[in-house]
């Protein structure tokens, strides 16, 4: 009953999800200066984007922030994921709620809160403030991904390690990390992507002199869409799509199972 209808609906949903991405990719290769006037195939706009200093500088900033974020968020998020399951209820529930809050709070609210905070405490706005702010939600992303894997792990090996006299740090390095590494790596890749793509938080805490790639694109949009912006967008899409798919493959390969599937949607 209705099975074919459901399938047709699903197909329509996929078209809906991918049409905008496809449109950007197609028009990035339009050699015409006007986006919607197809004037033949060309890759020249990619070259133009890469020669534009305001784009490459923003790109470098985004890479730096994204990588720094992945690193800090991995450390904080993984530590949190290790501690959380065995904390007493009284501490665990509020911390859990806090993790969820950092992820669902409307970004504009967090953005202005961070701005007010940095201004009041006299921390100069720039790359550093963007990094600090992004880590807040990215630590939560890593914590969720790592925790989904961690809670499913048996505890026998760690207990044996403790019994043999190893401390938590040695046990982590020698026993837990090798099994947890795929989840940590996947969490890191997702944190990188999240940070690299972030617009609103960066918009408020970047200050006057610092630009990231999404900020650069946004300011260009004020003058309308240009082929150069489309080409830049395609390069961003390639980079972030790549790291998301990689995160997913890493998680699935290593689990042979499904927890990765539930961990990534954990957002």
């Amino acid at each position, binding site marked *: 009953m209705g099975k074919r209808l459901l399938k047709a609906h699903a197909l329509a949903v996929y078209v809906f999800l991918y049409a905008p991405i496809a449109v950007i990719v197609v028009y990035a290769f339009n050699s015409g200066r006007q986006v919607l006037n197809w004037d033949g195939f060309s890759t020249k706009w990619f070259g133009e984007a890469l020669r534009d200093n305001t784009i490459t500088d923003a790109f470098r900033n985004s890479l730096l922030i994204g990588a720094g974020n992945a690193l800090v968020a991995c450390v904080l998020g993984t530590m949190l994921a290790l501690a959380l399951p065995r904390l007493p209820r009284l501490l665990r529930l509020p*911390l859990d709620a806090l993790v969820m809050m950092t992820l669902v709070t409307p970004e504009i609210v967090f953005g*202005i809160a961070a701005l007010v905070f940095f201004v009041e405490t006299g921390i100069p706005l720039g790359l550093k403030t963007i990094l600090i702010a992004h880590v807040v939600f990215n630590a939560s992303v890593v914590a969720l991904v790592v925790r989904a894997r961690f809670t499913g792990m048996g505890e026998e090996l760690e207990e044996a390690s403790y019994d043999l006299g190893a401390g938590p740090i040695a046990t982590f390095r020698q026993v837990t990390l090798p099994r947890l590494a795929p989840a940590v790596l996947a969490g890191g890749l997702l944190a990188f992507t999240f940070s690299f793509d972030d617009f609103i938080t960066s918009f408020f805490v970047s200050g006057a002199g610092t630009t990231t790639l999404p900020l650069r694109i946004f300011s260009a949009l004020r003058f309308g869409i240009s082929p150069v912006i489309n080409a830049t967008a395609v390069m961003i899409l390639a980079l972030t799509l790549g790291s998301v798919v990689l995160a997913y493959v890493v998680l699935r390969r290593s689990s042979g199972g499904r927890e990765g599937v539930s961990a990534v949607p954990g957002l």
Partner: protein
Amino acid sequence: MRRRAWRAGGRRRGGGPRYPGWLALPAAGWYAAFFLVPLGFVVAYSFAALEGYAGIAFAWNLDNYRSLWDPLYGGVFKRTLGLSLFGTAATLLVGFPFAYWLARYAQRKTLLLLLVVVPFWTSFLIRTYAWLIILDPEFPLFRALHSVGVVGADLNLLYTPKAIYIGVVYNYLPLMVLPLYAALERLDWSLVEAAQDLGDPPWRAFRRITLPLALPGVVAGSLLVFIPLTGEYLIPVILGGDKTVFAGNLIAQQFLEAHDWPFGSAIAVVVIAAMTVVLVAFSRIAARQETQGG
């Protein structure tokens, strides 16, 4: 397992290998310093007033909230609520049949699910501005539809509330689909078949079995769509041409243009308060669902 990703907490036994609790400290400290304290500053600011050109005086009164009590802003909040409700209902309407198909009939579920996740993890900004191209009356599809008479020549969705609605459904759909799928995927379809074998027409089997079992997914998905939408900023700016103002835009205006940070903070506090109410209400529903479900 699946549940854990959505709902905080869980059993202590089987919580994974044993590690000391102090490992939570760095993250907890980071959250406290750079999330809770900033939110506290916003609350404090909401009771302050502008002084001179750029100064701020902590008057500790409710003036900002009183000025919010104006039909002008009431309209903005109503519109924001409308947008959040619309987004939740529309993504549920589109997402449920989709998740149902994915969970019950689809082959190669992993790949198909990945295809839903991937757009969600790519740039919100890029995926949103792409609709500027698609909704442009000059877009080939539009011109084709026009030439065969499906749409009128004067149809221009660009920078209208309709464009905002399309952008909202587009951007938030994966957030609804994923928890729905997670709930439906665990569903034992033989229960549904048994009900039908025993004489339930399909719709009644759906209402009595599928729907109650899918409810945790519906609740989780609704939360993930509704709450961020109360502060949606980017979609109205890009697709609505910044002409239709929602709470998120109002906050941004106060910070970027009017430079009235205390007033902007008061609006943000209202959004936070609304969010808290919704969260508490939803978690009550979820808790009751759990005790009923046994």
